[in-house]
């Protein structure tokens, strides 16, 4: 296996969180679809009350299926969509109207590196763009060189004058990362940074992100649908379902001892060559998640296996599941879940 790049000591990651999201709500207005049988006009509650903290030098994975709101949350953190409720705080200060300063410190890496680069701009121009916008003092060419080198494109001179279509997928993503690094950000929000890249190339990009965390203490928020990826890079994992975080905690805890039935269901379907019984395990039933029709009470209860097979009733929380929206609360310190069953059981309970 390749060399590991471990997280800094837990004690170093103490102190106030660098980025803090508090009860965030992002709603998209209902669209009127003319040619469908059921014209939907209900608004889509993409992010429906999310609170999350990211510490300095931490790698947090935001995991979930499509429609769960993870990308919307990432874009809200970047300031691309406006939340109608809730706050986002950076270094303790809420985001103001002018995001210019904020944009130097929080940068994004995109899912599609080809689309994210202007095809008419050279690599040099794409990386220098941020420097020019913020009028960063210093020799522009030197700063660009340094950013490219940090992003693993060496020697930088070889790449300066190339155009995006002359680069491979992995190289393009490195250019996007270099463009972000040029501004020396504190936080990188990576939206599915490797899902469009070839499998054998993903490792290098992920290793680059881990290296940036180790060397420069940059915090990384990785949005991904791939729990196995979260296993291999994240310190903490937050699992989202229908606009809420339903479970969050240290990677090992969440992925090996999940407390929320949804997390368990997701883990059950991750393809694993060593897991011969995977194809026979029961799957989640019910409608796939739709942010325009979020169920009442616990949003997962219509599909919850623990409710269906009686475990919830056994624990006496069945009524609660159908009537109260569970809050994200610690089951053990640091490992939070939004599930009545998880709350009822003391520490040490795991969803089998």
């Amino acid at each position: 296996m390749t060399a590991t790049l471990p997280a800094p000591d837990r004690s170093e990651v103490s102190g106030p969180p660098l980025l803090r999201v508090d009860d965030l709500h992002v709603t998209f207005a209902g669209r009127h679809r003319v040619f469908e049988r059921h014209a939907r006009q209900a608004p889509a509650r993409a992010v429906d009350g999310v609170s999350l903290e990211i510490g300095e030098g931490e790698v947090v994975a935001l995991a979930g299926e499509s429609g769960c709101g993870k990308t919307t949350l990432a874009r809200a953190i970047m300031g691309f969509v406006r939340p109608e409720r809730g706050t986002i705080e950076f270094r303790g200060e809420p985001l103001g109207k002018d995001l210019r300063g904020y944009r130097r410190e929080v940068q994004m890496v995109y899912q599609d590196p080809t689309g994210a680069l202007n095809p008419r701009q050279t690599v040099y121009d794409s990386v220098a763009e941020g420097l020019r916008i913020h009028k960063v003092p210093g020799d522009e060419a030197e700063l660009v060189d340094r950013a490219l080198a940090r992003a693993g494109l060496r020697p930088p001179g070889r790449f300066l004058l190339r155009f995006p279509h002359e680069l491979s997928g992995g190289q393009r993503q490195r250019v996007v990362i270099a463009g972000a690094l040029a501004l020396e950000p504190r936080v990188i929000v990576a939206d599915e940074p490797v899902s469009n890249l070839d499998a054998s190339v993903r490792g290098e990009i992920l290793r680059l992100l881990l290296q940036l965390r180790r060397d420069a203490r940059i915090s990384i928020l990785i949005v991904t649908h791939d729990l196995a990826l979260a296993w291999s890079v994240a310190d903490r994992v937050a699992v989202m379902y229908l606009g809420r975080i339903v479970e969050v905690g240290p990677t090992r805890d969440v992925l090996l001892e999940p407390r929320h039935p949804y997390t368990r269901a997701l883990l059950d379907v991750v393809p694993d060559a060593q897991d011969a019984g995977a194809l026979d395990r029961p799957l989640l039933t019910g409608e796939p998640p739709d942010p325009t029709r979020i169920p009442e009470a616990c949003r997962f209860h219509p599909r919850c296996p623990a409710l269906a097979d009686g475990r919830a009733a056994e624990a006496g929380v069945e009524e609660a599941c159908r009537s109260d929206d569970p809050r994200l609360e610690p089951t053990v310190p640091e490992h939070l879940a939004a599930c009545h069953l998880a709350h009822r059981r003391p520490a040490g309970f795991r969803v089998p």
Partner: protein
Amino acid sequence: MAGDSLAAKARSPRSVVWARRRLSAGRFWATYRRSVMGIAGLAILVVFVLVALLAPVLVSSDQLDVTKATGPILEGPSLAYPMGTDDAGRSVLALIVWGSRVSLAIGLLAAAVSMVVGAAVGIVAGFRGGRWDAALMRFTDWFLVLPGLPLAIVLAAILGQSMFIIVMVIGLTSWPWTARIVRSQALSVRERAYVERARGLGARDPQLILKHVLPNLFPVIFANTILSIAAAILAESALSFIGLGDPLRVSWGATLELAFAAGAPTIGAWWWIGFPGACIVLVVLAFTMCGNALEEILNPRLRQR
């Protein structure tokens, strides 16, 4: 490391971008060459533009002076007067050569006005969206539904007849079409990931428009402008024909107006109507052919980008 960047600087980013531009211009020309329509249109335009530019050399401006005309009156084409003469004895050829300057100039200027206003409105509406878009588009729609020619007539009648007024009138009544086309392009470019990335880097709207949106809209604006020139020349001819043109300048439309006023059809002086008319048709046709050829070439690339 420093050595590398020094070597790279020797071939600076600027020079590479220009080298690439020359290369893609060369490729563009190679593609354009293959379009028969485009080449035919371009050839005709080159001829007319040369004629217009070289007018003082080709034909003395004295020939336009009614008082100095020495030719026979209303005579058909002959060796001395290849396009015949008008009712004052002026050579129709002279009128056409000098008229080309006016018609082309007005057409180009009016199209420029239309393009600048239309592109500006289209970009801001398409890119900003929201209330800006709604307001600007209502404003555009208002101009769109106004009947162009009657409006032009009224404006010209009120504001007077001069080249400047004609240019403004045509420009201001034809920009909505450009605005709509530019807006729809801007709407699509706005969604592109690299525009969002630039925004994420901290760019503000004006920077985004200048650096990312405008360069991508340029092909569409350019092709559209060529077609607008055709429309503008036609409009100018129409306005001059009904007598609203600048009375002091001899455009093709004005020549037609004089011809009709003198009763040329009845007299049978076909050369006085036919040649100016043919020129208008040819030039408009040439611009349209070029514009269409351009759109054909530029459109697939637009979809790729």
